[in-house]
């Protein structure tokens, strides 16, 4: 399996990563190498095998739908890059 420059650019876009031209070529080579490793999976016959979602096959635990935490907004926003009046600030998205 070999990835092209354009494949890497598409993946980077999906992953919200910006790449420069040289980087995309390097990643194309490296990711293709990893995909060659991963291709060894094809040797396994997995017909009828149930995929394993959890190592202990435990179901997801549920809890009562109750409020368990108080309002800690100011506390958590103290580490944000930019906030104003309890809101996170980002560049303008609507003109």
């Amino acid at each position, binding site marked *: 399996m070999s990835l092209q420059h354009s494949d890497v650019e598409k993946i*980077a876009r999906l992953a919200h*990563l910006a790449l420069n031209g040289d980087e995309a070529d390097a990643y194309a080579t490296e990711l293709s190498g990893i995909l060659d*490793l991963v291709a*060894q999976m094809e040797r*396994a016959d997995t017909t009828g*095998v149930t995929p394993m979602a959890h190592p*202990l096959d435990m179901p997801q635990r549920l809890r009562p739908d109750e409020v368990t935490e108080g309002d800690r907004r100011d506390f958590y926003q103290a580490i944000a890059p930019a906030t104003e009046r309890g809101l996170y600030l*980002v560049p303008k998205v609507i003109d």
Partner: protein
Amino acid sequence: MHQFSLARLAAGLAAGEFSSRELTAHFLDRIERHDPRLNAFVTVTRDAALAQAGAADARLRAGEAGPLTGIPLAHKDIFCTEGVRTSCASRMLDGFTAPYDATVVERLKAAGMVMLGKTNMDEFAMGSSSETSWYGPVKNPWDPARVPGGSSGGSAAAVAARLAPAATGTDTGGSIRQPAALCGLSGLKPTYGRVSRWGMIAFASSLDQGGPMARSAEDLALLLPAMAGFDERDSTSSPEPVPDYPAQLDEDVKGLRVGLPREWFREGLDAGVAASIEEARRVLEGLGVVFRDIDLPNSALAVPAYYVVAPAECSSNLARYDGVRYGYRCEAPRDLEDLYRRSRSEAFGAEVKRRIMMGTYVLSAGYYDAYYLKAQKIRRLIADDFRAAFAEVDLILGPTSPTRAFRLGEKTADPVTMYLSDIYTIAVNLAGLPGLTVPAPMAGGLPVGLQLVGDYFQEGRLLNLAHRLQRTTDWHLATPPGFD
């Protein structure tokens, strides 16, 4: 004092031979003196450590001490520590001060342990050499030209150099066991769900597991009860009760059936490592352990399946780093998309980006069945191999890593070469089983790790066999030159 076991430290504290403040100051001084050569710590919390030690001394005087009260330790910088920078060795979290303690940190603090600081690691725990850190590589105390292993390489180097009596680590594909092996330590990756993941920065959530790193199995057995147990805040935390691990340490091992997987002793295994494992095996045989060859037929599929599952989960988990709520934000973003893309690209290192892209690719439309679903099916085959093996044997024994510590830069050019460092540890994570490493005899002046794998929740049995080995041998007592 820095050569004492945890039990010996506890006895010294209880008898008033030294105070926790004296002990803590001793380790802080060692960090100051030796760490510039190793880069094992990213943050040293001197003042907080001395304050915690003072509080521990008060508990000791009041007769309210537990078996770990007043003993210092270091936390891998992946565990959130309230009020202390928690960087995950990434530029992304370089300025991040955790707003709360991880459950593991909270529990060890409640036990009275004193935090010396936070240890260096591969960025977001993605690596096997501790070379991908934003703060520069960690050096192996046995040979500073070599890597300490990874991703918990800072914890391993710190404990091996006697800069801390013990440390925490996390293990997604071998990140506790491989660095412990390469630095001559004992390290335990518990059963998935045994130790809470809450407050432990997520890499691959179905594989991540925290555990202790120390200088003996006995030390690990003292640490594990203080870390393990059900936690409501971790949705995959196990309700299984925590047994009294120290009480099981001295149990007889005569007649214990231990399997040697044929697949773990084939080509790719360094001859020096193989000879060292064989020497350890003979000692165990002398203790009455019964060995037999077993097969884990799907072993070769573990690394390929892991490099689908782990990057897939990584790409989801790391989507949270968007430059909005916390972490790094780029300068003067043009618009929201530019903010996301540049913040992530400027703050993530090459290996993290590689794995995010790999994960994004295998989860993208049209590829899910061929990659993620296939890998999850292989995961089942691997777990079934172990299940079949544990019908015949009590434990499994083999090498922890195919080689001894390699040179800095030796494997950084080709990611796949680096990935194969974890060939014997990864299957254990995929199956969710407990795995432990202890030192086998050194080879060519470098440590070798012996791996033991048990059935689910059989940590006690692993620690028992490892302790019996360490009662008979002194391999685990070797100290790197210049650090004794």
